[in-house]
């Protein structure tokens, strides 16, 4: 069981411009991602949308496999900027590490 936080996307805005709410989970980003395998970055964006922070934290290493190449953002039919959502999540955790 994982707790959800519907306000999480709003909280993320402190770490970057975030259009994650626009995502309708079509999976184009995961299909074009050079990492090809699994559901990255779609899964992370879905977790962010529902505020499943525990899940993101558990799988946070995955965020740093992202090449920041921007192909997902270029091809996103919703303009949800998946690459920026991933970068914003990285910033969130990096900021937490700095504080710790």
């Amino acid at each position, binding site marked *: 069981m994982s707790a959800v936080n519907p306000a999480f996307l709003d909280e993320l805005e402190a770490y970057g411009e975030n259009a994650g709410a626009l995502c309708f989970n079509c999976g184009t980003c995961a299909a074009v991602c050079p990492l090809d395998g699994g559901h990255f970055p779609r899964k992370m964006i879905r977790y962010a949308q529902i505020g499943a922070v525990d899940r993101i934290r558990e799988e946070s290493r995955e965020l740093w496999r992202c*090449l920041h*190449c921007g192909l997902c953002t270029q091809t996103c039919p919703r303009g949800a900027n998946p690459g920026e959502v991933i970068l914003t999540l990285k*910033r969130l955790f990096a900021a937490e*590490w700095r504080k710790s």
Partner: protein
Amino acid sequence: MYEPKDIIAILANNVRKTMSPFGIPKSMVNGWWKEESLPRNGETLLVTGLMYQLVPFIETATTWLARYEDAKWAEYLPYSRFVPPRLSGLGLAMITPAEAKRKAAGHLKNIVKAMRASGRRFGYQPELDEYSGILLYDLGDQEGFVRHAKRVAARLKGAGVTSIVTVDPHTTYALKVLYPKYADASFEVRAYFEDLNLSGAHAGETLSIHDPCFYGRYLELSGASRKALGNLGYACADARRSGLFTSCCGGPAESISPKLASRIGAKRVEALGGSGERIVTMCPICLHNLEKAGADVTDLSTVLAGGLKTA
């Protein structure tokens, strides 16, 4: 894969203390200009961002990282923070082959050669040429990146710099897009190949272009490099994914997972190699990672400078 937290901590500490991600003294990184008789002042300042110069050290560092990735020894990486950055940087510099450093310097000399042949007037002040901090940005260390960007921007602004010519996509993106946004510093920034005015006759040779993500997609400069090559008489073949839809070389993953970087690089080489033409790119990271994946890749600067011989 290494723990991102450990890698970020090391890189951020190095940048904060030495302005360099590897802690290598700048005098050991940036010496290519000494034989070039470059003017200090010009309408535009050449800023390399030290990316080409750092690649030989990246090669050495990632070779070692690859050796211990996922091994038990990787757990001890956090303890490296107790080693002073300049000491570890000096060590890295000592074990990096001189030939790799000469090769990197050669690319910059070729860029200067092409710009001079184009009549481009520019100055170079090595003391103002600093690493942009782009890796910290990519890794999500926003605080570290902004602090560093402000230091670099303050030096440039303090010297009265308004116009900059760059040589690699990462530095170009940082100075053109990120510095105005995060470091309150706006410069007129142009990639060196945007304003070249060269001519030659290389009809018959077709080049397979690998667009770096930052040039092809983020900065939309694919047309400029093709135009420069076209003016020299080269024809350019596009890979299946090119321009706005170019595919990554894998290089950005090197610091966290050399294995992943190699896997992505091998896929890209396979896609580029289909035409059998000479592969050309214009990014030191792409160049290094595609070469590592087994491709015979030529830097754009080599092609441009080589083309001048018969121009």
